């Protein structure tokens, strides 16, 4: 009997037992909470379940990417909210990446003015709360932009006002899809020819021309595209009415303000990351590349960027996730994102707090995990190989 006890009294067995006890007690607490909640809700007569998703919402939404009216269901509203959140996030992510990388590289410049400007931008916008910044840009743009009866117009058909940005709606016709197919074919041809050229170089030691023909083809295609532009779409111009504009396509001001402020805020962090990871590439690496006669562009392309990328991806993933999560501050300026219309208005209307909160959280969790997955996948492809 004593020997059995002694054989179980090892570090490994002890740690397993302790872990099992902890997991069990956490599980027990959760079960207790859920049971208690269900009992309380039943006593107060609050229903639990997803059946409410089929009922009418009875309110309209400022912007929706799919067909939605007051008569649509909560399920449809849920989808509208998700799409609006994704829309503002994607625009924000693209903008913040462009601003962040540009500022980050400019920060490394030897030009005094460039350096000071970028440092000032980073230090100011990184150190102010994001909610304050969203409100700031909101009030600024609302002061600057004219009312809809006196819009700021670019050309005849683009109008910018407090109501948003109105521009012609383009409905592509057959010719557009033909041009699109030609573009796809050209890209495939380029990839194939480039691969062949590399092979040809390795086999014969001679260079097969790729870049010059590609540039010529791109130029020609661009020219044809511009010439045929009017024939590729059916245009529906915005029409001025008593209450602003009708028809055409519009972007509401809130979308622009929210994605802009999110991008400006997050870009400060991205810029610092970009700078840090480029600086983290050892000076000796640049010297070694220079000693091989590599020109500055080649040095960046083959030595600095590949090494900087593997440092930058993990923090960049975090920053992207932050931007997506911060988009839930939309409520502050009335942009109809998932939190504003679903976890806000829909919750108040239906009173289904538990279900709506869980659904909303599930959406953000899925979005974040999806971004993490994509970034990890990319990270694996650029990370340092050590065999």
């Amino acid at each position, binding site marked *: 009997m004593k020997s059995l006890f002694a054989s179980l009294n090892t570090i490994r067995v002890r740690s397993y037992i302790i872990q099992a006890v902890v997991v069990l007690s956490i599980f027990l607490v959760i079960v207790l909470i859920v049971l208690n909640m269900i009992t309380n809700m039943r006593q107060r007569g609050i229903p639990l379940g997803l059946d409410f998703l089929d009922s009418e919402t009875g309110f309209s939404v400022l912007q929706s990417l799919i067909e939605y009216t007051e008569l649509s269901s909560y399920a449809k509203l849920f989808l509208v909210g998700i799409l609006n959140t994704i829309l503002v996030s994607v625009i924000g992510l693209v903008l913040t990446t462009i601003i962040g990388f540009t500022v980050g590289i400019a920060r490394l410049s030897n030009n005094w003015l460039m350096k000071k400007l970028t440092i000032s931008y980073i230090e100011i916008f990184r150190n102010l709360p994001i909610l304050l910044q969203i409100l700031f840009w909101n009030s600024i743009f609302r002061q600057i932009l004219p009312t809809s009866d006196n819009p700021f117009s670019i050309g005849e058909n683009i109008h910018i006002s407090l109501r948003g940005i109105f521009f012609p709606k383009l409905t592509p016709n057959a010719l557009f899809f033909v041009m699109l197919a030609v573009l796809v074919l050209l890209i495939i041809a380029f990839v194939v020819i480039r691969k062949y050229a590399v092979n040809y170089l390795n086999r014969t030691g001679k260079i097969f021309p790729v870049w010059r023909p590609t540039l010529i083809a791109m130029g020609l295609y661009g020219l044809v595209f511009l010439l045929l532009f009017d024939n590729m779409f059916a245009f529906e111009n915005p029409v001025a009415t008593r209450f602003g504009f009708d028809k055409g396509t519009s972007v509401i001001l809130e979308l622009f303000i929210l994605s802009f402020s999110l991008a400006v805020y997050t870009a400060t962090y991205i810029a610092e990351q970009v700078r840090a990871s480029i600086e983290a590439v050892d000076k*000796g690496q640049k010297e*070694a590349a*220079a000693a091989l*006669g590599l020109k500055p562009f080649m040095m960046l392309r083959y030595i600095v960027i590949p090494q900087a990328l*593997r440092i930058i991806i993990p923090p960049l993933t975090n920053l992207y996730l932050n931007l997506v999560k911060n988009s839930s501050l939309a409520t502050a300026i009335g942009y109809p994102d998932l939190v504003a219309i679903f976890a806000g208005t829909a919750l108040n209307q239906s009173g289904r707090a538990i279900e709506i909160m869980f659904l909303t959280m599930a959406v953000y969790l899925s979005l974040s995990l999806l971004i993490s997955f994509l970034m990890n996948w990319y990270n694996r492809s650029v990370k340092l190989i050590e*065999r």
Partner: protein
Amino acid sequence: MSQHEQGKNVGQNLGESMGPHREPFISVENLSFAYKGLTVIEAMSLQVMPKEITCILGASGCGKTSFLKVLAGFIHPSSGVIKVRKKIISSPYHLLAPQKRGMGMSFQDHALFPHLSVYENIVLGMKSKPPKEYKQRLEHIVHELKLTSLLQKYPNSISGGEQQRCSLARALLPAPSILLLDEPLASQDVELKEKLILKLRSLIKENGITALLVTHDQQEAFYMADRMGFLHNKRIIQFSTPYEMYHRPNSLWTAQFIGKGSFLAGEITQGMLQTELGTIKNFRYVPLNKPDTSSMLLSHSNVGYPKPQEKKQIKVFFRPSETQIDSRSAIRGKITAVFFQGDSFLYEIILPSGAKVLSQMSSHYKYALGEAVGLRIRLQNLTAFESG
């Protein structure tokens, strides 16, 4: 001393290439530079002849690496001019970008690219050239430097010595007209080192490369160099053939740093050297204020030196191999230290005056610590340094 006599005395004939009339390939004039406010090199001049291997020898931390980086263009000098084939590449008014200097370099810390395989590292410098053009040379270099089995590996997974050979291959493949080598074989195992030195030398010579090598390793310098310079106290204080450097040091510093040796105090009377070991008639006299020979192509050891003055205090320099233990000798001493060196013993012997000399004897002749022995010294080709 004429050129003819010089060759005879030195005993190492390097032929036409040693003639001082040829144009130098790299010419460094009055170069100075400071690092963090500290002067590292001051008014240094150096001339490197085409297709020769020139070696700069110096103690650790004397600025060898910085000097190479100034040549390569990574550090900017505070003054002075560097010319390659008479064309100025660095002056206070003009700095040519490192990429345009046509100088290859192998680094002390190897500086391999961690994200590229050994093969990709080696061929990176040939990016703009078709593989056909360099395939044969690549195979040759890879074989000579024993890298064949490592090509697909990544730098972080190979040893320091292997990384160093990879770095050498990378620098050699583009066959730059000038190759700068920073301690090129410092990480190699002893038994491989000698072979690699000869291989590296022939790879450089085959490709007609002008090489400048810095090292603290005398063996490496002696084996590789056509000419060598000794860097001490911010400048090159002696520039000559390796043979001259060893046998005709032009300063106490050179004598102390290069090889082993011992000094014995003495005095000059009637043009002859009086020492504890007797009177020495034939010797080479090096005064304290000797002319600056650092910029000379070859410092002819006695060129411009004054005749020894009477009553001058001097220090005579002996090599251990020229100091032999011989019981019949009248000069007596006592062994104070014994160093076993494999094929030989190095003995430190104290003379009655308290001066210590080193003696190198074949290890078949064994003497005990504290034993009283006789000393016989070959009194030829000695150098006498004025000691103030």
